[in-house]
């Protein structure tokens, strides 16, 4: 089955820097979503971008979607220690299924 793949698998940055993570997927989609997971907890929805959108903002988050390249990126600006978490992309393509990637582990150093 299709699977989103995040890149990089792990990222370590200093507080205040920007963090960028990427997601690639294999088939056409209706929308793509990004989730955050703090260590050992459930996932929290961050942002949803539909297939006819190219860019979306929410607070310090900026998501882009390039359907021709089947890829998306999540940018977190002015990162904080509290942003330390794993980030997952999930694609939805017209069925009930959401396909999750394997995640990017972000560590923000104070």
């Amino acid at each position, binding site marked *: 089955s299709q699977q989103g793949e995040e890149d990089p698998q792990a990222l370590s940055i200093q507080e205040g820097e920007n963090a960028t993570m990427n997601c690639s997927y294999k088939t056409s989609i209706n929308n793509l979503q990004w989730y955050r997971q703090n260590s050992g907890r459930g996932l929290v929805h961050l942002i949803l971008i539909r*297939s006819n959108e190219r860019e979306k903002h929410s607070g310090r988050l900026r998501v882009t979607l390039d359907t021709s390249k089947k890829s998306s990126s999540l940018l977190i600006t002015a990162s904080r220690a509290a942003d330390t978490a794993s980030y997952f992309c*999930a694609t939805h393509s017209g069925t*009930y299924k*959401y396909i999750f990637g394997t995640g990017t582990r972000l560590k923000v150093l104070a």
Partner: protein
Amino acid sequence: DVKVTQSSRYLVKRTGEKVFLECVQDMDHENMFWYRQDPGLGLRLIYFSYDVKMKEKGDIPEGYSVSREKKERFSLILESASTNQTSMYLCASSLFARSGTGGAYEQYFGPGTRLTVT
């Protein structure tokens, strides 16, 4: 705020036991999901339900069954627990996306149950 609760945060069971994991959501969502999460494998869908008494198999249903007798409650059952079912189990719910709404809604997750089978 949507709240999804799971019956246990941590659970230790013996091989061969029947295990019940319960999930309850309080926002009248039609869709409910059970995933397992393993390092390096991401989230994998076990079962999905879009209505009371309705269920669909996900990618890895073997060794599991589900029950949805009430809209707010979705149970995952391990018929005979095995050590390879040691994992983090995550329940989620979402609204049902009608056709023409542009796709699925976001999922709301419970805190997870870390199950260890010895």
